[in-house]
């Protein structure tokens, strides 16, 4: 396998699109010690090609799939913050879908958004639009996702369901059964998988270039702030858990996507009978690798992921979609997998296009329902473990996992 240099990548991508490129800068270069390019395999290039193929920006230039079928007619159920800021604008940009309607129990709000984005229909119930669409994006609070997803699947609609898939694994199972019975797709909105840096780095790992994982450290935390209309993430009647269920689930999905499920784990949180706001999680893998995960919604943490492997290390900021710091076989590099900033609308567009292509071509989406089920089931196990703790005689310090 021939090694490709960073310059190769740059040239190749430059030919593909003037807007899209991959820059690989060596720290050695900056130190003025000459070029020592990072090794990148053909597989890496394919991965980059995949990314650029899926790029929402390039999609504007290139257009739809060659010989494409008619676009997937889509309705978005739940018109809260995530729909307004990501799903709706993304849907209006992806040519494989045609956004037909918005559904929300607050139909006036749905109508306002429909007018704002130029969408034909606004309705208060799924039934009102079910006959006019082929698929739905389910972006309601999680406690009603299972019911709505089953209704949609039973009506023969494909479902792209926001994460967490449902409030518990039993509900997830029912959703999967409904999808199987109706031969329709259920995809889960673990959208961090579509970040270019994650996909690229995972590929390096999966192709064996990094070797065995030795240790992972993830810190994810900010003081709570939410643009959610319902603030369901703080309401026990609507969700079974706090920061792990609502925020940490992305990181858990990433860890499972890369390394699979752990052999054993230790879990601690700061819940005193309510929803946890601080979590310490230790995952132990059968090959000796470990992952430490600190999560908070009461304090600011470094919001970074660092991973140590047999042959190298890599790290990236949690909310950065393109940057990646890599040390491989003794060489260190700083990669930026895109020259222009990415945002969550583009990520939502990648996710939606992946879902649409899966539905149109009868193939599995990048994040199938089984993966959503896996994270929900694991979180359930964490909460079960926490529920077995004896009640403390003294009140723990606020926010400190116990």
């Amino acid at each position, binding site marked *: 396998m021939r090694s490709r240099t960073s310059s190769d990548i740059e040239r190749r991508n430059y030919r593909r699109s003037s807007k899209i490129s991959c820059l690989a800068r060596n720290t050695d270069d900056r130190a003025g010690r000459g070029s020592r390019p990072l090794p990148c395999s053909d597989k890496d290039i394919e991965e980059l090609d995949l990314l650029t193929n899926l790029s929402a920006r390039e999609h504007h230039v290139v257009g739809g799939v060659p010989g494409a079928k008619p676009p997937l007619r889509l309705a978005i159920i739940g018109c809260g913050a995530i729909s307004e800021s990501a799903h709706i604008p993304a849907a209006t940009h992806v040519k494989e879908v045609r956004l037909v309607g918005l559904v929300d129990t607050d139909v006036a709000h749905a109508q306002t958004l429909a007018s704002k984005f130029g969408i034909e229909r606004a309705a208060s119930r799924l039934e009102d639009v079910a006959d006019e669409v082929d698929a739905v994006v389910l972006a309601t609070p999680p406690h009603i996702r299972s019911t709505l997803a089953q209704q949609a699947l039973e009506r023969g609609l494909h479902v792209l369901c926001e994460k967490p898939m449902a409030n518990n694994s039993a509900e997830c199972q029912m959703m999967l059964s409904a999808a199987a019975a109706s031969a329709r797709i259920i995809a889960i909105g673990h959208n961090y998988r579509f970040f270019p840096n994650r996909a690229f780095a995972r590929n390096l790992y999966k192709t064996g270039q990094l070797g065995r994982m030795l240790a992972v450290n993830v810190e994810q*935390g900010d003081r*709570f*702030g*939410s643009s959610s209309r319902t*603030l369901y993430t*703080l*309401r*026990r009647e609507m969700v079974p858990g*706090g920061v792990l269920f609502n925020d940490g689930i992305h990181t858990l999905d990433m860890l499972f996507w890369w390394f699979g499920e752990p052999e054993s784990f230790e879990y601690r949180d*700061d*819940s*005193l*009978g*309510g*929803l*946890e*706001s*601080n979590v310490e999680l230790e995952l132990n893998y059968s090959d000796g690798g470990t992952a430490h995960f600190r999560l*908070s*919604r*009461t*304090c*600011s*943490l470094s919001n970074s992921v660092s991973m140590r492997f047999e042959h190298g290390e890599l790290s990236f900021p949690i909310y950065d979609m393109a940057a990646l710091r890599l040390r491989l076989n003794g060489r260190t590099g700083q990669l930026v997998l895109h020259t222009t900033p990415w945002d969550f609308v583009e990520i939502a567009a990648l996710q939606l296009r992946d879902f649409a292509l899966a539905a149109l071509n009868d193939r599995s989406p990048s994040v199938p329902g089984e993966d959503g089920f896996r994270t929900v089931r694991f979180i359930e196990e964490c909460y079960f473990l926490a529920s077995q703790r004896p*009640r*403390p*005689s*003294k*009140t*723990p*310090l*606020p*926010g*400190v996992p116990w």
Partner: protein
Amino acid sequence: MVSYANKRVFVTGATGFIGGRLAERLVVEHGADVRTLIRDLRQAVWLSRLPVTFVMGDVTHRDSLEQGMVGCDVVFHCVGVGGTVETCHETNVNGTRNVLDAAKAAGVSRVVYLSSSAVHGPNPPENADEGAPVVRTGAPYGDSKIAAEEVIAAFSRQSSSPSVVILRPTFVWGPRSDWYAVDQIHQLRQGTWQLVDQGRGTCHAVYVDNLVDAMLLAGQSTGAAGRPFLITDDQPITWAEFFQSFARMINVSTIPSVSSKWVRLYPVRKLDFLFDRMLGLLDAHMPNVEPFRFLFRASHYGIRKIRKAVGSQTGFGDWDLLKYARRGRLNTSSARTVLGYAPGISIAEGMRQTEQWLRDQRIVR
């Protein structure tokens, strides 16, 4: 031994530092059925960790209070805000009136009101107890606390139920305290925190868990009805010792100091005021080109040097200067004898817990 097992209690101000800790301890140590008043759900992230009932409302709206207090035995009224005279009056005074009226309508038997030692002004007399005169200083917060206590006195004259106990804590510190934990670290790190008179004044702290102990006692003490109680840790140290404990957490060795007397001297205050005006005028009118930019920077530098030389540059107002300069005792014998209050956590232990919390929340690294 107080117990709130199987009791239903209502807590206002539970999204805050003191009310939040009270709610935690009522749940964990007593298994109480806790109902909390929530004005803004976004502020309830700490509280969401508990199996408590959220009652959406506001102390300025009596309806939500009455609804929340149904079936409650005790109300802990912890809401208190600073700000303008109007804000303080609306929330601290009218809010307290609403809480009392709602508690009466709901059949609550005891209200514990969290007042403040600020009612005695910044510089209470030596060995002051609850009988020391209340002092209106014109500061909106302190004056509104006095007015709220007057509302309680008038209410208690007209109605025997619910009985009301007033607690007057000194400054409250500990985990989750913005004013006396988090801010100290930030300001010490930035070099903007100052001692007053080398920190020789007496620091009458009250650790949050000690105050919560007093509140729990006040909720059930039979002899406490209708009385105010000063609450402190009863372990007076100097302000220098107190703030240096925070400084040590972040390896800051020295804390600058200002002189309370010198700064408060009228000409110095006047000079400070003039400096501010001068800088404002220079900023507004000096053309943003050289050499005026250089002249502006030079003036700024000169004024800063003069301020430092005369010791007039401080963020403290007169109230804080008096508070930090005061040396003397406070008398908490009433709380000890009537409530049975005894501070269970020493300042050293409180500081250890606070540091643990600050490190866990990455405020100290």
